[in-house]
Structures are given as structure tokens and as C-alpha cells.
């Protein structure tokens, strides 16, 4: 049973490379819920929590963790007062499918909200490869807007080059720059748009390493720094500084399992504090960083 869940998850990602990892995780969790054989609701919840933990071990991104927790809360939010367990399970499965449908549409909603902020003739800077940013730029291009995009290379996995290829397919003029050239290029660009792996309680974001640098530079040059993220990426963390981000998010899952001394490893993500972010575009609307906490309280409490 351990392996089937992980296999299903991996199959989802392979089958649809465009899907967000959290959506794939939630699909696997829903399938797990359908196949689960426990006798009590408490047992069911425990199995679900275990399943989420196993998925986190496979893919240690923040989104999987936050998506999983929100899924669990959403399905158990209804009154599970039916005497029959299978009836309860059906209610939970129904809500799970509703949740899945809602979040599959969230990327589209974000794209629709954000593309109006891109004016004709704009020069945009973005970091690494984000599918949400791609959707936004796609919508803007479909709106017959002319703009150029600068993408950072984003080592160590050169994700930026993949982003550039996808943009070229959409006929958007794009240029790849080195990570070190962010300060150099900042005076040319009009706005910065990045995606997020997780949005934390303070309104800050966790994203690929190099985002914090870009935010500091854009603040120094007074350029707007926009973050696009779906609402299932909201997580109940509150880091005070870079050190305070938990280790299980900083490194990929395989490194966490194999390496003994994490201080020798280079982290894959960093934390951008809310004072550097201008606006966040989510499927709940356009939010300022201080409004994120309000939304989180509504989601979680």
C-alpha cells in the first residue's frame, strides 16, 4: 500500500507535466481515500495524515504539504454525523472532488486577474520556471499585448532555460540572463513577476533560491514586485528570517534522506519577507501582504 500511493503520485506527474504538484498530490490522496479500508473515522484521518507524510517524503515542496493539509481540513469540515461509515466516506469523497475541481481552476483565475497589470510595451523580469507565471504571460499574449521577458538562469537546475523555451513556443520575445545579472538588468525592467512555492502567514513567500535577491534589488530600484500563487499554497508557517525556514522544505527529498550533515548542502529555496512584496495575485483576489494573514485565518480557523 505504501508504494501504490507514491507510484500513483508519480504517474500523475508524468502523465500531466503541466499540473501543479499539489494538485497531483491531492488527486492521489483522493484515490487513497476511495481505496481506504479503515473502520472508524479516526482511523481514516490517521491514515490520511500518514499518506500526506509519505507524499511529503517523495516531493518535499511546501505546496504538497500545504495542499495536503488544506485538503484534509476541507473534507472534514462537514458534519460527519452519519451513523454509517460508508455514508460519511461518500460525503468526504464528494467534498474532496469539489475541492479538487476548485483548485484545478485556480491557476486560470490567477492568470485572468494578473494579466491586466501587464501593459503594452512592458519589460518583465521573472525567476526560474513557474507554471503560474507562464499562464499569466500566456493570457497577456492572447490579449495582443507586446512585451519582452527576461528570465534568470536559476542554477543549479537551469530551470530558467526551460522557461525560456516554453515562452519561445508562445512567440514571446525572451532573454535568459545570469543569476548574477539581476542588479544589472533591474533598471531596464518595468515590473517583476515571480511564482511561489508557498505563501506564509506573514505575507512573505517561499520560492526558488534567488528570489530574495531579486526582491531586494527591485525594492532598491522602486520597481513593483508581484507574486502569483494559488490559494492552496498558503501554509501556516511564520519564518522570521532565512534560518527559520524548516529544513524539510529547504532541500529536496532525496538529499534529506541520504545526506548526514545538511550544512554542507546548498538550499533550494529562500524566504522573501512581506516588506519587499508589492502585491500577491491569488484565486481569492489581489491581496496585499498584510491581507494574507486575514485569508489564512479564514481558511484555517
Amino acid at each position: 500500500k505504501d508504494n501504490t500511493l507514491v507510484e500513483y503520485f508519480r504517474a500523475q506527474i508524468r502523465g500531466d507535466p503541466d499540473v501543479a504538484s499539489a494538485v497531483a498530490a491531492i488527486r492521489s490522496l483522493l484515490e487513497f481515500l476511495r481505496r481506504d479500508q479503515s473502520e472508524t473515522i479516526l482511523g481514516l484521518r490517521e491514515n490520511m495524515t500518514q499518506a500526506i507524510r509519505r507524499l511529503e517524503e517523495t516531493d518535499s515542496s511546501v505546496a504538497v504539504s500545504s495542499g495536503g493539509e488544506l485538503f484534509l481540513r476541507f473534507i472534514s469540515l462537514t458534519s460527519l454525523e452519519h451513523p454509517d461509515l460508508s455514508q460519511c466516506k461518500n460525503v468526504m469523497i464528494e467534498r474532496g472532488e469539489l475541492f479538487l475541481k476548485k483548485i484545478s481552476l485556480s491557476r486560470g483565475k490567477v492568470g485572468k486577474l494578473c494579466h491586466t497589470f501587464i501593459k503594452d510595451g512592458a519589460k518583465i523580469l521573472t525567476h526560474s520556471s513557474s507554471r503560474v507565471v507562464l499562464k499569466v504571460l500566456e493570457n497577456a499574449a492572447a490579449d495582443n499585448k507586446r512585451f519582452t521577458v527576461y528570465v534568470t538562469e536559476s542554477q543549479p537546475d537551469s530551470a530558467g532555460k526551460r522557461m525560456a523555451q516554453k515562452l519561445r513556443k508562445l512567440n514571446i520575445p525572451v532573454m535568459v540572463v545570469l543569476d548574477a545579472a539581476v542588479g544589472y538588468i533591474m533598471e531596464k525592467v518595468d515590473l517583476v513577476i515571480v511564482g511561489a512555492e508557498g505563501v506564509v502567514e506573514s505575507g512573505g513567500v517561499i520560492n526558488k533560491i534567488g528570489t530574495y535577491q531579486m526582491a531586494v534589488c527591485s525594492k532598491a530600484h522602486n520597481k513593483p514586485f508581484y507574486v502569483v500563487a494559488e490559494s492552496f499554497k498558503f501554509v501556516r508557517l511564520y519564518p522570521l528570517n532565512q534560518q527559520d525556514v524548516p529544513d524539510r522544505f529547504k532541500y529536496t527529498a532525496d538529499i534529506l534522506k541520504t545526506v548526514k550533515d545538511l550544512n554542507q548542502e546548498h538550499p533550494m529555496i529562500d524566504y522573501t519577507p512581506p516588506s519587499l512584496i508589492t502585491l500577491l495575485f491569488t484565486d481569492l483576489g489581489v491581496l496585499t501582504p498584510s491581507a494574507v494573514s486575514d485569508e489564512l485565518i479564514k481558511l484555517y480557523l
Partner: protein
Amino acid sequence: MADSDGRQVDGVNHATDKDVKLQEIALAKNEGKELTKEEKQRLRKEKKQHKKNKKDDKGPPEKEKEKEKASVPAPSKPATQSPAHKAAPAPVHASESAAAAEKPAKSKAELRAERRARQDSERTSKQGKKEGGQQSASSKPKATPNELQPVVKRLPEHVQVDDPAALKKLAKKLERQQKSGQGCGLNKTGVEVPLRSDYGYKVSLFSHLHQYSRKSPPTLQISIPATVIHPSIVRLGLQYSQGIIAGSNARSVALLHTFKQVIQDYSTPPNEELSRDLVNKLSPYISFLSQCRPLSASMGNAIKYIKKEISNIPSQCKEEEAKGKLQACIDSYINEKIILASEAISKYAIEKISDGDVILVYGCSSLVNHILCKAFEKQRKFRVIVVDSRPRLEGREALRRLVKKGIRCTYVLISALSYILPEVSKVFLGAHALLANGYVMSRVGTSQIALVAKAYNVPVLVCCETYKFCERVQTDSFVSNELDDPDDLIVTRNGKSHLENWQTVKSLGLLNLVYDVTPPDFVDLVITDLGMIPCTSVPVVLRVKNVDQ
């Protein structure tokens, strides 16, 4: 209505606008429309205006009737349209119009008798209504000493020390409160809740605040045994004014325990209801306590809670049962909001303390000390730097408690702050209150620490229970603060105290501030019993709490 129309058509030398005004009042009352505070004030002002205009052509009877009219709409609650309520203004209107027609014919005595009869009928009609928490017919709507009203049009009276009219009003209010507490039968031995007088020259920016001396406590003038103020309240007031009980949580807990004692000793007088009478009994106590030392935000919230609980006691509840219920409420309030809250806050705060941390604390906050002790028990390795300041030197108490636990501590004065900050990894601060716009009100010196920590990029964490959140909004430390005894600033070194005769120097003022406000940009995180929130989310928590209640 026909009466008034008839009067107007009469064409007698009544000023027509006066009739219109009376019509307006009658209309409003009869339709059950609630006169808002502004409307009532406006009507009162206009009536005063009328009085001035007609001083010559109308005699005293008319004035007295108008004054009585002014007092009748004020305490009455036109919210419910009970027939008894409608009957009360109707005879007023009818008799008033009848009197107006034959004004010179009636004598003063007859009018007075009429008025008394009307007031009696009004009082009985009001007591017929079984609503909880109503004001008694004799009390006028007074501005509560609590400055936590959500709509504060002007500063509350007790803060306007430099306005002589406001001081006079306050003195009269104190007299009225203790007189109503005495009831009939006891001899009126003069004012028992004395108005405490200010001491020494006050710096002009803060002249609207009280400045008392510790050498003249308000309890000196109270007779023994105190007939109006309960003895444990007198003791509590003395403890507050002498600084024996200090600190936000300590003061609130002491207050609640004293109220438990008061409720225990309380017995309902024959024709009164516990839910209404007890609240009235508590008001002079609260005025007395705020004379001893101005109430804190946490105390204000506790008092609001108690008053709400008292007024929610159903009238058919027996006295012993009601008293037991109230005591249980108070116990659960202390347990939930203070004790359990500090446990929850410690749990969240311990996550933020990592091994090797250097933590800076300021003054003595019971909550921060509790967190550090708990973290030490959980085997976290950290050391603490305690920052202290004159004249209270509260840091010594914190130092004593932490060292007793075995935590490694360093002690500095606040002047050495910028020297020590490069070593610090986190700053933990306590709070006296969290204001609705995200500002943190705390011991004076806190905003200084937050400012310098921000400049050194050190995270600042404020720990505060949710019962200290208040609806007030404040952006500076001048508007509402507390001035402590200025003689505390006099220091004696080598037998010489230079400031001893500071009162003789006319241009010298000693300023001993107690609180200051820190803007939310300097605070990184607020840890409450609901979780970790940014400073800007305080109004969200207040909204959630109001929805719960």
C-alpha cells in the same frame, strides 16, 4: 397631534419654532424612533437656545417644564414600542399642551406636583419592562470612565485634567455615585470617594493627564469603616497606588479576585434585582480604583466581561445560585484568558527559540519570563540579556527569576542597547495592550528597543494574550498615557540628591512616563493564544472574537 396643530392655528404669541421642536420630540417618541446621541445633543442644545431666547417673555414654569422634557427623552429607551412607554409621553404631551394654553393660571406648586406624578408613572412603566441591563430612571447617561468605547467623540472626562469644567463634572459624578450607593437611611457624611488632586508642575504636553504623588494616597480621607467602598477594594486601591501590585496580568487577576470577594459579600436590597443593582454597586468601586491608578486595557476588558455576565443573570435566579454562577464565571475567565493562554503562547514561542540563541528581554513581563522558563525546561540552549531602565528597575526582578531557574543572563541598562544588540539573535517583548491599528502599548522604553533592533535587523517578537487587545486606536504616546510620581526621578548619591528641591525651580518639570506605543513596522511577529499573527492582523482577531461573543 391635533392639539399641537390647534395651538399653532391659535396664533397666540408662542414662537412657532418652539412648537415645531416639541412636535418633533413627540413624533420621535411616539414612532419609537431611537434618538441618536447626536440628535439628543442637538435637541438639548436647541432647547438651551430656546431657553435663552425666551428668558424674558416666558416665566419659570415653562423653563422647568422644558428641563424636565430634556431629562425625559434622555434616559428613556424608545427602542421597544410597549404601550406603557407610549402612554408615558402621551400624558406628558397632553398635559404640557394644556399647561401651555393656560400657563399663567397654574401655580408653581401645582406644576411641581404634576411633574412628580409624571416621573413616578414613568419609573413604574420602566420597571415593568423586563429587560436586563437598563439604567435606573434617576441616572443620567454618563460617559463611562472606561475609555474603551468604540465610538469616542471626545476624550473621556477623567483624562481632561486641564479643563476645569470637566473636573467639576467628574467631581459631581463621584458624589452622585457614592450617594446612590448609600441609599436612603444613612446620613450623608459628605464625599467619600475623594477627587485626588494633582501634584507638582506638569510638562505642558502632558498637562491633560493626572500626576499623583505616592505620598498622598486617596485612602487617607476615607472613613473607617468605609460605608460606600468595600474594604477589599480599598486595600486593592492602596496596593495599586503604592505600586505593590504592578504589571498588567497581576493587576487584572487581583481585580478579579477582589470582585469575587465583593460578590460574595453582596446581598440584594429588597426591591432591587441582582442583575441591575450589582452593576450599579460596582461603579463607585471602579471610579475609586481609577482614582488610585488609571485602569489598564486588560482591566477594562475584564470589567466589561463581568458587567456583561452580571446583566445576563436571569431574574428568576436565586441569589446564592447567581453569586455562585458569577464566581464560577470569574474563575473560568482567569483560567482561560490568563493561565491557559500563557501555556498556549509558550508552546508557540518555544518553536521560535532555537539552540544557540541570544534573547533580549526588557523589564519584567510575567509572560516572557514564563516562556523562557518553559523553554529552559524543554532543554533549549540559549542565553538571555536583560535590559533595565530607571526609575522602576523592573529588570532586576526578571533577572532574579531567570537566574533562579539556572538560565545564563547578562544585565545591562537601556543606554547600552546599541552596544549589546549586535550579539542578539531575537528580542522578546511583553505588551500592556495591543491597539486596533496594530500599535503595541507597553512599558516606556519598548519602542526604543524595537527601533534599534529594527536598525540591526534583529527580529522583534511581542507576546500578548488576546484579552489585552483593545478597540482603541492611537498613533502616539501623548494622547493617552500615565504619569507616575515625579519624585521617583530624584536620585540620592553620596548623600546628596540634586533634584530634591525641584518644585522651587519654576521652569523645571520632572516627567515620569509609564507607557509608550510602538508602531507595527518595528514588530515582526505577535504571539497570541490564537497563534502567530503579524501585527497588522490585530483587527482581524478582534473581529473574530466579537463574532464569537
